[in-house]
């Protein structure tokens, strides 16, 4: 296979000449574009991982800013409006308690003591409006216990 390739290139010197500048420029342009895409795409997509206390500590500054908070679902606070698919619950971490509202079907793994990660914004009334509700199964399963729900 290769011998054919080589035969075809017989007229070529065996050692590479230095690459012409134009290709180096081209390479740099591609690298620059990739870097630009990465940097420019960061805007609006970042969400800080905060504890409930850290979120509270930010006070009014936290309102409207996208963050992720994780905690354990308190089963006693779960209210699910089946007709309109509105899910209200509190999550608790070792720094405090956060009331959350989520619009969408109740995920299968959503239950008392489930480990939840909510992504969204704190409303002015102190309720966390979750646009994304990620759950880790609290039980004995190590493998791929996952559920994602993103209503649009």
């Amino acid at each position, binding site marked *: 296979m290769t011998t054919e390739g080589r035969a075809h*290139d017989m007229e070529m010197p065996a050692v*590479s000449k230095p690459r012409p500048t*134009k290709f180096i420029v081209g390479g740099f342009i591609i690298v620059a574009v990739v870097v630009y895409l990465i940097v420019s795409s*960061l805007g609006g997509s970042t969400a800080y991982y905060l504890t409930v206390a850290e979120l509270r500590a930010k006070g009014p500054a936290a309102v409207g800013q996208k963050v*992720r908070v994780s905690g354990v679902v308190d089963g006693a606070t779960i209210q699910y409006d089946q007709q309109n698919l509105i899910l209200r619950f509190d999550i608790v971490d070792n720094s405090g308690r956060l009331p959350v509202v989520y619009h969408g079907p109740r995920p299968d793994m959503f239950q008392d003591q489930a480990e939840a990660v909510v992504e969204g914004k704190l409303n002015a009334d102190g309720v966390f409006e979750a646009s994304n509700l990620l*759950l*880790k199964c609290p039980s004995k399963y190590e493998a791929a216990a996952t559920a*994602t729900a993103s209503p649009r």
Partner: protein
Amino acid sequence: MIADIGYGALLLAFLSAGYAALAFVLGQRRRYPELIRSAENGFRMAALWVAASSLIMLYLLVSRDYQVRYVFEHVSNTLPLAYVLSAFWAGQEGSLLFWLLLVSMAGLVVLYSQRDAAAQPLRPYLLATIAIVQTFMALVLILPSNPFALLANRPADGLGLNPLLENVGMIFHPPTLFIGYALYTIPFAFVLAGILSGQPSDAWMARVRRWSLMAWLFLSIGIILGAWWAYIELGWGGYWAWDPVENSSLIPWLVGTAALHSAAVQSRRGIFRTWTAVLNILTFGLCIFATFVTRSGVIQSVHAFERSSLGWYFAAFLAVAMAGSLGLLAARRRAFADNYALESYLSREAGFLIGNLLLVGAATVVFLGTIFPAITELFRGQQVALDAGFYNRSFGPIGLAIILLFGVCPVLLWRRTTLAQLARRLIVPAAIAVLTIVVLIVIGRREPIALVGFGSVAFVAGNILMEFGRGALARMRSAGENPVTALLRVVGRDRRRYGGLIVHLGVLLIVLGVVGSGVYKQEYQTVMKPGETLDIAGYTVQYVQYVDQELPDKQRFATILRVSRPNGAARELVPEKNFHWNVEQWVSEVAVWSRPAEDFYVILAGLSSDGTATFQFLQEPLMLWMWIGGGVMVLGTLLAWWPAGERRRRSASDTAEG
């Protein structure tokens, strides 16, 4: 007792593989053929011991020996046999044993297939590298991740499998990924053998091609099955969430794709040698990285794998393997000099190179996005996560550029192409693309992403189909064959090229699904009582019956819907919400009516005891094409992989991978 034998077999596998690695290198360095022969025996023994411990693992699973912790955690009395067998790779310890088994079996194939004279000087290094990887995996299995660990007592029943994982996709998705990861050891070993022996040659690299293709194929299937499982089972109507664990399988796939293309150019033209070596090394490293991400807990993921010290074993191995092999490559880089330098941007070489850079760029985007929380924690003391928007904005444009490139690449010639040649061959596909866009605008589909996406697909598909047409036409003229025979012959004669083009067609079909469902997804939500009928988005939905029945393993709540189209086509869809007794958990089952135009996806979102149900209906245009495209990719890869009838190629200048 039996478990102890399994553990003993692992210990022996570790010792045999370790001995083989040392003896291969020493035997080659000191020119001592007896030692090499002995190393080969060690290599065989290692594979044998791994196979023995795997069989023992399977026996323990099937006999439901709950004293073994792994069996207790993954099997239960009611679990069907298929899932009992799949428990072999369902958990961490078992999947690593499965990985070691795959590497060992692939190693045996290498041992018996690379025996000719040309392979002799590199063979000891090749096998030594495989043996080193085996030694590492066996070490992990005897220390932090022992699959044969015992519980103090013998429970009467095991924990079983999470019902979410009881799905065909889940039986095949993890092992296919693991097969892909494991097989990527072989290309890495070939590259390292080339470096260590100081005799890298294009002929040597050509031998690795079918291994790389096979590894890539399994990785592709694994990723597609994962997406399908998420779509069918997780019930949110999506297939990809840019979760770290998903990303970590995509990164080696992207770099592996670049490596395949770069290797194709190297074996045909004798250039990109260093670049090919680097990409193969990186692909292997990224496969290890994937395991590190999954198991270390460094990055928060919704895939709730148990965190363990295991991740750090992988991090250490990764660091040593990458630093070692890239360092050696740098030291021996003279042996990797290219035959000639690039001349023109309008050449196939340049096209491949740009495509390579873009693939690696796309992999970099996903890689940085995945480790972003860890980076910000390191520098700012706080984890910052990125959402899907980041990937859509950064990965999207690069993906589009790659797709456009594989519309242009097949018509570029090696060395240089004149603008006139290029224009002549691109005019028809460009016209098809413009026509597509015009039609879309006329029928009112004016979203920019759709126009760009579908326009690009039309351009590239037009070009690829014309490639097939040109080839067939030439044969019809020269050999006087009918169109079908001519097409089959032309494809059969150059399977590498046409297999590659078919894979590209598969990717285009996937793009159709991504763009269609991404831009035109619609969502409706309604409350219905049994007996009610409703018109929604061109479908008539009749809620026929509510079923509440007690089954041995679960309480089944099902809503039987009859969904019909204006043209009379109808389908019974049964979304369910079931409560599984053994895990005390709800599991929803969505119902999907897939048609070429769109998927009608029904989620049972809420249910009252009188049968009043809240349904979510999703319209997902063109989703079916995503899975068809996956199938086409598999077929194309197999065609490219299939051993050629050792026919001479016509001339190097008119053959190439697409």
